[in-house]
């Protein structure tokens, strides 16, 4: 999703993490939007854990940037914060807004109107209430955007009260662990509605918060970070346990809101505890694996937002040419077609939307003047 670092700073291990999260989401949804065999359909639920992993990764990456930048906020004050927001929004909003408008016409659930759905532009679709099925994927973007907005704001507030960045970060992380936990207990989550809570911003902010905790440990307690990486098998075993118990319906069967809320918290803690292990990974000997990981990671945000549209597009084309019965019902044909179209669409939107805006955000005032002057010279034929 919205995880990025400059190319020179790319970590191969985090690219692996991003690729894994992205593929879990895409293949989970692919199974949910097709007619898989009963055995395969059992794995569709893994998509939700792909997003959980994305949240922790996003928290770790953004946390590292934020903790570095916030060190100067007692001097730069609001300008440091707005600069952080500007860079985040230039990274995430263009593609989000593009797919919002595409959804108005081509959403999986059917066409709708701007006036009905305009709240999606303000990420108000699921702040503390369940969202509709329109542009369904946007739920996680709303969680991320509200996190980008509120987390640094709280850090700045604590800095405003005279704390240094380390203390401000710790206070903010604790608030972001406790508030969603309490909200999940205090606000209505009935056992049959456990799954609704997963898609509500206020209930999920801690998932990214634990990612920032990993960044905090990395920044100020590196030996501990390395110890967690060394004992990677412990969080991995717990994560597998969480996935299996979810498959067996555990979160829905838990009696009481406290236990259900705790299930979310444990899930976030142990997914975040995998980040140090991913971070320590080094490139493999097989070059094609590394290239695949790098490429998928690079276009992962486009893949995430665009993959359902790729499915819709394939199905529409199959219907138009009368191939639906023959292709859609055959997993050996439809899944490769889905996969290729997902990557093609993702690459196109990355090149045409994401990349130009990423370049634009890095242009400073002087470069912008030079850019316009060169355009002027071009116009006069010099």
């Amino acid at each position: 999703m919205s995880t990025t670092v400059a190319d020179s700073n790319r970590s191969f291990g985090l690219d692996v993490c991003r690729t894994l999260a992205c593929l879990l989401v895409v293949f989970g949804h692919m199974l949910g939007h097709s007619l898989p065999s009963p055995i395969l359909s059992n794995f569709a639920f893994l998509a939700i854990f792909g997003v959980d992993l994305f949240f922790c990764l996003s928290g770790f990456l953004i946390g590292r940037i934020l903790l570095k930048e916030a060190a100067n906020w007692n001097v730069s004050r609001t300008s440091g914060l707005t600069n952080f927001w500007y860079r985040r929004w230039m990274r995430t909003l263009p593609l989000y807004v593009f797919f919002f408008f595409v959804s108005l016409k081509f959403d999986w659930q059917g066409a709708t109107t701007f006036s009905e759905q305009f709240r999606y532009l303000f990420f108000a679709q699921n702040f503390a209430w369940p969202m509709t099925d329109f542009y369904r994927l946007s739920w996680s973007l709303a969680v991320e955007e509200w996190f980008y907005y509120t987390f640094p704001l709280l850090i700045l507030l604590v800095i405003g009260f005279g704390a240094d960045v380390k203390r401000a970060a710790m206070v903010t992380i604790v608030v972001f662990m406790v508030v969603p936990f309490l909200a999940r207990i205090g606000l209505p989550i009935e056992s049959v509605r456990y799954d609704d809570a997963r898609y509500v911003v206020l209930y999920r902010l801690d998932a990214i918060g634990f990612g920032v905790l990993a960044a905090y440990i990395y920044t100020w307690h590196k030996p501990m970070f390395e110890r967690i990486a060394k004992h990677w098998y412990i969080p991995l075993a717990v994560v597998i346990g969480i996935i299996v118990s979810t498959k067996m319906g555990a979160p829905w069967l838990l009696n009481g809101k406290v236990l259900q809320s705790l299930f979310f918290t444990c899930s976030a803690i142990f997914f975040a505890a995998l980040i140090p292990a991913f971070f320590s990974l080094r490139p493999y000997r097989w070059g094609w694996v590394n290239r695949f990981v790098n490429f998928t990671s690079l276009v992962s945000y486009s893949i995430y937002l665009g993959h359902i549209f790729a499915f819709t597009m394939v199905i529409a084309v199959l219907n138009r040419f009368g191939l639906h019965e023959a292709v859609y019902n055959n997993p050996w044909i439809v899944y490769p077609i889905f996969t290729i179209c997902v990557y093609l669409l993702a690459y196109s939107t990355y090149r045409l939307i994401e990349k130009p805006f990423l370049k634009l955000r890095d242009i400073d005032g002087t470069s912008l003047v030079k850019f316009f002057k060169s355009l002027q010279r071009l116009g006069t034929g010099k």
Partner: protein
Amino acid sequence: MKIDLKILGSVCIFVCLAAAVLYFTRWMDVKAPVANITSVAVSDQLQIEIVSNALQLELKGCDVAQVADNFFVHIYPLDASKAGAEGFINKDFNLTGLKRLSKETRSGVTYCRYVVAFGSVAVDRIELGQFRAPEGKCCEILWNRQVNFNK
């Protein structure tokens, strides 16, 4: 510790801005619906009026916990190209997630009203009902009703 009032002031402005955005996007009015089609009495507490462009729900006693199960509304547009990949527009909702349109008291009993708009599409028919997902397995249909708009 030295308190920086400029920082605190800026943070307050940003918090107010976010609260205002949430308030106006969540609590904007929905357009008034038109021609009545039919009505469904779901229970003693809940009555649903189906009008040409929306569902109007009236909850006696205003206790949304009494209606915990999700509703499904499948809208089949006259122009089939406006339907989703499943052949209809899905408008699943839960009463707890809806904003209340109004609250009134009649003969000492409180009634809450909610609206679920169909959108701007011309509707051919709708399928309405309630479902639950026991242990996360979708779906056990509790009741359903089909309403044709072109009769």
